[in-house]
């Protein structure tokens, strides 16, 4: 009975009673985020190619893929926390910390790079744990916790390293960012795809992943159904830390060095890509629904636009404005799509 539900209790219960017909179902498929994104990517890709033939040059495709890979993983790092209805402002800070940690292990401690990488990732996960633990223990919104922790993590890192870069990065590791398969595919992009598949597996085919979604959708119900919500939330933050670490180390490989400034002051430079990917990808900020593929496509679209706009030479200063505008449009379209569907299901 709708009028008992909060949805209808708010003043905008729609009056239309449309029952899903096959046609509508087809429409619904065309309205899925992923489809929409693929469409946008094709359109813009075509447009750029038309405007700037060099757009499809091997070199450009290569750097496009590589930059996309970084943004995608950053997006994932945020996504896995957004699943819980929270968010993690400290992804950037954690990413840099993990990168510097890894750099230190390679240069100062002189570990073989695989171990160093593992070390860096563990550091990332550990910092994630700190966030998660603080969130569940204090019962505060992760926004405040991570707002504080981003300052603390970054501050401590810069304090310890004195902002000195680690640059003796083994070639075998750094080359990941420079090899080109078939002349235009970056290994990092493949890595990003692998991570996506892993996340898909997590959310679709494991108890933990499903519990993360349940806890995100409605913690109280999940709790009463035997989900250890607190533990799950901590794990989400650890996963975020881990992924942030991956992104950080990708940048290390790309720069042949671990640089404290690589994500800007406090790692804030990462926030935009971190949110845009998931948001464009249709992940609900309120939690409970997630789309790794969507995030991947979203981040890719974002990178594509930046790259294309630069090539168009509309003047690099207008790039950001145009980006913001496109983002807004994308979000509004997505909203239209969602309400369109919502009218068919009564949520």
């Amino acid at each position, binding site marked *: 009975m709708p009028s008992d539900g*909060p949805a209808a*209790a*708010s*003043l905008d219960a729609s009056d239309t009673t449309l029952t899903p017909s096959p046609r509508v179902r087809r429409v619904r498929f065309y309205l899925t985020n992923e489809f929409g994104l693929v469409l946008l990517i094709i359109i813009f890709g075509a447009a750029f190619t038309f405007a700037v033939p060099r757009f499809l040059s091997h070199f450009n495709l290569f750097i496009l893929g590589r930059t996309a890979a970084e943004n995608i993983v950053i997006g994932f790092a945020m996504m896995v926390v957004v699943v819980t209805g929270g968010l993690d402002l400290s992804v950037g800070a954690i990413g840099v910390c993990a990168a510097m940690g890894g750099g230190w292990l390679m240069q100062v401690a002189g570990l073989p790079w695989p171990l160093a990488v593992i070390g860096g990732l563990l550091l990332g996960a550990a910092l994630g744990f700190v966030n998660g633990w*603080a969130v569940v223990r*204090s*019962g*505060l*919104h992760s*926004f*405040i*916790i991570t*707002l*504080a*922790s*981003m*300052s*603390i993590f*970054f*501050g*401590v890192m*810069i*304090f310890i390293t*004195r*902002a000195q870069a680690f640059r003796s990065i083994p070639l075998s590791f750094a080359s990941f960012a420079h090899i080109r398969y078939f002349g235009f595919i970056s290994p990092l992009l493949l890595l990003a795809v692998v991570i996506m598949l892993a996340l898909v597996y997590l959310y679709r085919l494991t108890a933990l992943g499903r519990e993360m979604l349940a806890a995100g959708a409605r913690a109280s119900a999940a709790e009463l159904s035997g989900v250890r919500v607190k533990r799950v939330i901590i794990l989400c933050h650890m996963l975020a830390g881990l992924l942030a670490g991956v992104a950080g180390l990708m940048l290390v490989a790309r720069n042949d060095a671990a640089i404290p400034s690589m994500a800007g*002051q*406090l790692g*804030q430079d990462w926030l*935009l890509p971190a*949110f*845009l990917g998931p*948001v464009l990808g249709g992940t609900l*900020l*309120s939690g409970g629904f997630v789309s790794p593929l969507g995030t991947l496509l979203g981040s890719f679209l974002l990178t594509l636009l930046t790259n294309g706009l630069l090539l168009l030479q509309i*003047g690099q*200063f*207008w*790039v*950001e*404005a*145009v*980006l*913001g*505008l496109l*983002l*807004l449009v994308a*979000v*509004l379209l997505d*909203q239209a799509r969602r309400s369109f569907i919502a009218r068919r299901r009564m949520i």
Partner: protein
Amino acid sequence: MQFLSRYGRTDWFGPLLVTILAAIIVGSLSPSFLSAFNIQVLLLAVAINALVAYSQMIIIAIGEMNLSVGAIGGLAAISFAGMMQVWHMPILPAALLGILIGLLGGIINGVIISLTGISAFVITLASLSIYKGVNLGITEAQPFYGIPNLVKHLGNAPFLGPLPWLIIPTAIVGFGLWLMLTRLPIGRCILAVGGNRHAAELSGISIRLTVIVAHALSGAIAALAGILLCARLQIGQPTIGDDWLILSFAAPVIGGAVLTGGHVSVGATTLGVVIVAIITEALVLFNIDPFLVQVVLGVLILWAVGINRLREFRLKPLRRA
């Protein structure tokens, strides 16, 4: 004791205590801290940061977030400077237009949010890069230097003792907000919407209007902050506002604001700003590693939140009362 428990509950009590303590400690360690000129410097910092905090606070009051505070401030600042340098516009109209731009930016945010129902977080994230982008597009990241001397003067000079001119607009805004949030129905409506949207709706409060008003205010205040900063720096820096976000949340939170909305305190927020300012300055005075500033700020936030947390618990009604 009774006295303590009575004031212990108010938001401003904790921050006030900290402020006084901090002032005493710093002052005793470095006497010049309390010198007129230093107080003036402190007030200058507070004057601007307080506005930044207010413009976020008003949005926190309705239980939303405004990531574009800095972008709006920056845009207003460079428009203000630009209009005076390029179009040789007199100061007052330039300032008013600057604030108008901020107001507009806020209204755009508010309208989109209340019409689409998309979370403010996403919308302001988008508008953040739009406003910032327009800023860069106009300035090509080059500052405007053509600031009239009168503005430069107002931006730094005191009008009486250590009190700088800049403190005046801030004081007015602060008082206005306090009046609005405690005495004017519109302010109460804002808090009501933040406190319990559904109830407010059923009580005949127009959610949409309230949200738009809040964002409009936020934009205007951010713009004012940008303009003041521009006057203080004596150049129209395109980078104005880039580093506002953290402070804008830190101060209200230190001041006991509840992020879910419905509860903010102008006084406590102002004190939050003062605390941050004192700490920042102390770190310079005592020649402390600048890298530590961030850590201290972060810890400060957590600590403040912790305190508020405790108070929350004390305020919780007994289960069976």
